[in-house]
Structure formats: structure tokens, C-alpha cells
């Protein structure tokens, strides 16, 4: 047992193969476009909105479809049920997510150039925690929007949590909430890190 950990620790302190470094470097590069593309996408459909409404969550902003107007429209509709206006300024996530992504990119670059196999594990562990925490944070935020409805609103609805992942009926709207391109880039980031780790680990344990 002790040997296994010893062996693992020894392996983790070894340096990476060139191929692994390239994969880890590519992983770091994956993070750059995440600043410019949406991470998450919520789609709303109702009979009288045949083209639907779209809401895109970027790492730093909330942007509605139809040149931003869909967000205005969502807020106009929400005012009838007394929901507070969805406003990018009120989402602290949109401030710290870009910061953390930047930090992850720096850590990944460090791993690619001077890191050991262990530093890949460090980046994977931090990223995984960051991803789960971000999703939970958004879930919590949306849930508090849906549960803190103005009691004087013209339309009474039961408190609800908008979907964070998957499909849900909210009033007359069908709402879908799914990861968008930015999240796929994060997934790719993770897969490249794992691949980087895997190739070096396999090589070291062959010898």
C-alpha cells in the first residue's frame, strides 16, 4: 500500500514528456477564447415567441439574443411576476470567473513549461473545484431570483428555480439551459490535461 503511494508520488514528481507539454500548452490555449464566447445558454420558447428568446452567459456578462433585446424582454416579462431585473452588475460571478480563468491559464502555462506530472493534477483539481463551484453559484443565484418575488407583483406564481441544466416549464415558457461553446472549451481543456497526464504516466510506468 505504502509502496503504491510512494510509487505514485515518485511518478508525480517526474517531469513530463514533450508530447504532454504540448497537450498541456494546448489546454492553456483553450482558455483564451472562453473570454469571448458564451459559457452557458438559456433558451425560452412559448407559443407567442416562435423564434424564442435567448440568454447567453459569458464569463463576464449576460447578453440577450436579438442584439441584446431578449434580455430586456425577459426582464419585461419577469416584472409581471415580481422578479428582480436580471442585471449583469448584480452577478458577482461575472467578476470573479474571468479572474479565476486567468489564474488557471497561468497555472497551466507554468505546468506546461516547468511543471511536473503532479502540477497537472493540481490544475485538474483546482479547475474541477472551480467548475463545480461556479455552477453551484449560478444555481444559487437563479434560485434566489426565483424565490425572492415581489409580493405586490400583478401575477402570483409559486417560487421556483429556473433550470441550470436541462429543461423545465416556467409559466407558459419552455426553458432549456445547457452549456454553450465556452463550456465545451473548458471540457476540452480538461480532456487535454488528462491526455497530457496519461501519455507521460503511461510512458514512465513502462520503463
Amino acid at each position, binding site marked *: 500500500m505504502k509502496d503504491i503511494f510512494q510509487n505514485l508520488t515518485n511518478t508525480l514528481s517526474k517531469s513530463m514528456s514533450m*508530447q504532454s507539454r504540448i497537450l498541456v500548452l494546448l489546454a492553456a490555449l483553450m482558455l483564451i477564447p472562453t473570454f469571448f464566447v458564451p459559457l452557458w445558454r438559456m433558451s425560452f420558447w412559448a407559443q407567442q415567441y416562435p423564434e424564442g428568446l435567448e440568454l447567453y452567459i459569458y464569463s463576464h456578462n449576460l447578453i440577450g439574443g436579438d*442584439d441584446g*433585446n431578449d434580455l430586456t424582454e425577459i426582464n*419585461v416579462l419577469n416584472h*409581471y411576476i415580481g422578479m428582480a431585473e436580471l442585471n449583469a452588475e448584480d452577478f458577482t460571478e461575472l467578476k470573479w470567473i474571468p479572474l479565476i480563468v486567468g489564474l488557471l491559464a497561468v497555472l497551466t502555462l507554468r505546468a506546461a513549461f516547468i511543471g511536473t506530472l503532479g502540477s497537472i493534477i493540481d490544475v485538474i483539481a483546482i479547475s474541477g473545484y472551480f467548475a463545480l463551484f461556479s455552477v453551484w453559484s449560478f444555481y444559487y443565484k437563479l434560485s434566489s431570483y426565483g424565490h425572492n418575488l415581489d409580493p405586490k407583483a*400583478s401575477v402570483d406564481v409559486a417560487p421556483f428555480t429556473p433550470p441550470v441544466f436541462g429543461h423545465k416549464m416556467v409559466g407558459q415558457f419552455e426553458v432549456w439551459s445547457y452549456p*454553450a461553446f465556452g463550456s465545451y472549451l473548458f471540457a*476540452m481543456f480538461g480532456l487535454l490535461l488528462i*491526455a497530457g497526464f496519461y501519455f507521460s504516466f503511461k510512458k514512465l510506468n*513502462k520503463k
Partner: protein
Amino acid sequence: MKGLFKTRFIAVLSMLIVASLIVAGCGGPKSKRGRGGSANPGQSSDKVAAALATYVAPGDMDEYYLFYSGGHSGQVFVAGVPSMRHIATIPVFTPYPGTGYGFDDETKAMLGGYSWGDSHHPGFSETDGEYDGRWLFINDNAQGRIARIDLRDFKVKQIVSIPNISANHGSSFITPNSEYVTMATRMSVPFPEGTYADVTEYATKYQGILAGLKIHPKTGDLTLGWEILMPPFNYDLGDAGKGPSHGFMFWTCYNSEREFIEGGKLEITASQRDKDYIAMVDYREAEKAISAGKFKTVKGAKVIYPDKAKGVVYLIPLGKSPHGVDVSPDGRWIVGSGKLSPTTTVFDIEKIKKAIAEKDFEDEVDGIPVLTYNSVREAEIPVGLGPLHTQFDGRGNAYTSLFVESAVCKWKLPPYEDKSDMSSVILEKIPVAYNIGHLVTAEGDSKSPDGNYLVALNKLSKGRHLSVGPSIPESAQLIDISGDKMKLLYDAFTEPEPHYAVMIKADKIKTVEVYKKDDPYWHKNPNAIWSAEEARIERKGKNVEVWMLAVRSYFAPDVIRVNKGDTVKIHVTNIEQTRDELHGFAIDNYDINLVIDPGETKTVTFKANKSGVYAFYCTNFCSALHQEMQGYFLVK
């Protein structure tokens, strides 16, 4: 191992690429325009075939827009072809509370104090002889006006009234690059306008006017180019030349007897001569006359006198009391229809040019040369009784409406190999219900008509629909002209009273459905407000000015307090940026009803001349809480 590694390395990269492609491949929504797959009527009846040919399923869209003139309703009606469904009414010369037209300051000023007009002949702007879908022009036969509708938002942007014109009927015909749109006097009056002269002096004191209005190539703004002083005929319909006839404009004239005998009945006195005329204007010569100073400014208009500026206008003899003159798609054949003659006459523009060059004139009227009929005529076609107007299919065929016969006659355009029996070029006739005036084919005035649909615009429709009492609507019949045989597909009925209509391929028109806050195409309204913080009421002496916004489902401000006798100016901005979220603003008992489209600002100015408390409310249903969208106008 190395090979295996490479394979996996490539696999990872390709996964990446595939993922990006999947995301990038999520395109926009599929267009619903068009009519799905071609239906197969199989062995079924003509009715079933017609039903399938005109059926546009719920949610699907028509292939063509049809813009009808609304006649003395003063409007333009918009329908889809082939369904013939009425989609919208564009108010032009008449106030229309449905869209708040004529209630706000801007449109009220545009109507110029008139409460009606007689819209007759819509015409599309053209680029290189093709409809370009930018503007629709329409004339007012009653007040001598012409209007320009912007096809981006289907709204009137300009109504122009020019001096000296009386009853503008020979309008709105447009040159192939929208250089000019025509106007013409239908009922001659003493010249200059406003002059008094008794009808006993008709032959000498009364005059007609032909005019060309310039169209600004960017904005579409209309300005008067020139007027030509003409003999006291009635100038009827017109068309602009294209191709070899580009540069010419044509109008038919009746009452070349040039008389109006009190009690003598114009229907009799104007039908005495065997031939009347086509008046043909060479607009480049008119431009030259203007730049050479050969004009007089009369009532602000540059008027050309034909006897002083030779070469600007000619007359071409044409069978008795003509109505339509229409230029074939290739621009060579000028087709004139004498409504009291059972023939339609085809003239050849090449022969016309030759006659002008050789001064081959048979007469002169008030200094205007009359071209020798036999030299310019190509053929007389015995189309039938009461020919009025001709359209084309782009396959060398012409379609002439026969008012008296209640039919459409299809015939072959020249060139003809054998001219011994002209009835041989008549291909087919189809009866219509009833008494057809104009007809229109798809893109029929362009240089390349589509040749699939024809709409017969009939004056009478008795017995073809559920009875609505004596005020019987007009009928518009859709006819399939794509095959060898014309086929009647559909009867549609319209409000009074379409004269002419024009049909354009739907995808040529690019509309906006919301006035986007930052769209540079629309001028910024200085009185627009976009937030409740900007909403305010200001008083200066006895003038009260209100900047109001409308949004689902409230007005801000929602209370306006004034004193009796105050002048009140209210600017309402609909701050919605969502399509179909229109708001109304009506003040009860004050005869005010604005309808403000998303992103639009409208202003109304009025005197608070009744004291008391008046509700104002949203008239255009907007939301679940539309009924609550109201406020109070308090007059102390």
C-alpha cells in the same frame, strides 16, 4: 508506441475540431417563406387543383406581395399571392385610427388638411428596370398629389402636392432607374392654377399639365423636375419607356375634341373623333429645355411650353378614347388601348424614333407635332370590346383587360411574320367577374415579368360572395398564367376601390419590425425618451409639454394636469424593442388616438378646450395587463 501516440494525439485534436464545427453549425431558423413541395392534384377536379395552388398553410407565407390602390378610400391594401389574403392596410391620403395615422402632428401635417384622397396607381421604385423593393409611389387623383411609402416600414414618408396639376391620374409611373415618377392632369382647368375662366372658354383657357418628379436616389425624396403645358385634353394613364424606349414617357389622352359643352355630356362630346392620342415626352429633351432656360416659372413650377421647346413632346394618334398605354418588357413595343375601339394598337419605338428623325408628322396641335399614324404603328390587334390595360408575362405574350366583354385577352406580341389576319395572334380569352379595369402580372411593369400569376381587378362582384347589402365590394381574381391555358384560381374581395395594383417577389422587400434604438437608417427623434427618469411635464406659460413613455403595461407619467385653454404637446415614446409590441395612446373625448410602434416616438399637439377629467389609455392590445394601461388627463 510512438505511432500509437500520434494516432491518439490526432484523435484528440480532431475531437476539438469536430466540437467547434458542431457549435458553429447551429444555423439560424429555417425560412418559412414559399409553398412547400409541389402538390399533386392527380385525377382531382379543377377546384382541387386551384385550392392546392392557392393554399398557403397556417404559418407559411406567400410568394408575392400585392399592393392594391384603395381608390377613394385613399389607402393602399397589402395582400399575399397566391393566397390573396389581405395582410395590412397602409393609410396614405386618409386618416386611419387603426395605425393612428393622421392623428399625430407629423402625419396630420402630411395630410395637409384633407381627410381623403383617391389613390389610383401604385408604382415601385426600380433599379435597372427591375423592382428594387425600396419605395412604393401612389398618386391621389383628387387633390393632385403623390405619396412615397418606404417599404422598410410600410409607412408614408412624403406627400407632395405640385402646382397647376388638376386630378393627378397619369401617375405613378416610374423610369427604369427611378429617375422620375410621372404626374399628369386628368381634368384640364384654367392655367395657372387658381385662375377663373368659364367652361365656355374651355378650348382656349383650359390646359393640361404633364410633369416629371425627380426621385432622390438615396432618400427617395420627391421634388418637381418640370411641367409641360399641354392642350386641354384629359390625360389618362401612362408608362415609362425602358430599353430602347428609355428616356420616353407615355400618356394616353382622351377628349382631344378639347371641349366641355355645358349639358352636352362629356361622354358624348369626348367620343366624337375617331382617334385620340398618346402624348410622348422625351424627358432628356425636357431636361435640356430646362437647363437652356426654355421655361417659365409659373406658381413656382418650371413650365415648358411645347411650341417654344421643340422636341420635348409628341402626339401619336391612337384609337378612340384610350385608357392604358403600356411598354413591353423589352421596351420596344408601346401598346395603347382605345376603350371605345375593339382594338389594341402596337407601336414600334424604332419606327417612332425614325419618324421623329425624318419629321414624319401628319399634323400639329398647339405646336406639338403629331406623328404619322401609319408610319409608327406596328399592328392593330382585335382583342375585343373595351380594352383598357395591358400587362406582360416575359414570354412574349400580352394580357389585355376587356371591360365591356368582362374578360382577359391573351395575345402574342410582335414581331409578326404574317400581318394579313391579326386575329391569328389572339391566343385565348378568359372570362372574369365582372367588368375588369386594370390587371397586374407578377413584376409585370419590370423588364422581366415572372409570368406565373395575373390578378384581374374587377369593378363589379355582384353575386360572387355573401351579400353585404347594396354597397358591394370589388373583386380581385387570381389567374394562373404559367401554362398554355389561363386558369382562374381564386376570388378575393376588397374594400373600395382598387384601380391598379403591383406585385413584387416577397424576398425583394426587407422590412424592419422594430425601430431599433440605434438604427442609423431612421432619424433620431429629439423628443424620444428611453427611461422613466426622463419622463417629465414642463410648463411654459400656457404651453404644457409632456415627454411620456409607454411600455408594458404602463405610461410614465400617468397623470397630466393642465388648465382649460392650455396648449398641450405630448411626445409618447414606445420604448419596447420587441416586435409586435405596439402601444396606443388615446385620450377619451379629445379625438386623439396615437399608435406608437416599438421604438417610435409620436407627438400630438392640441388645445385643452374641455374641462373635467378624461382617462387616457392604451388602445392597441399589448399584454395581459393591457386593460390596466391607463392614466388621467385632468383639465382644471
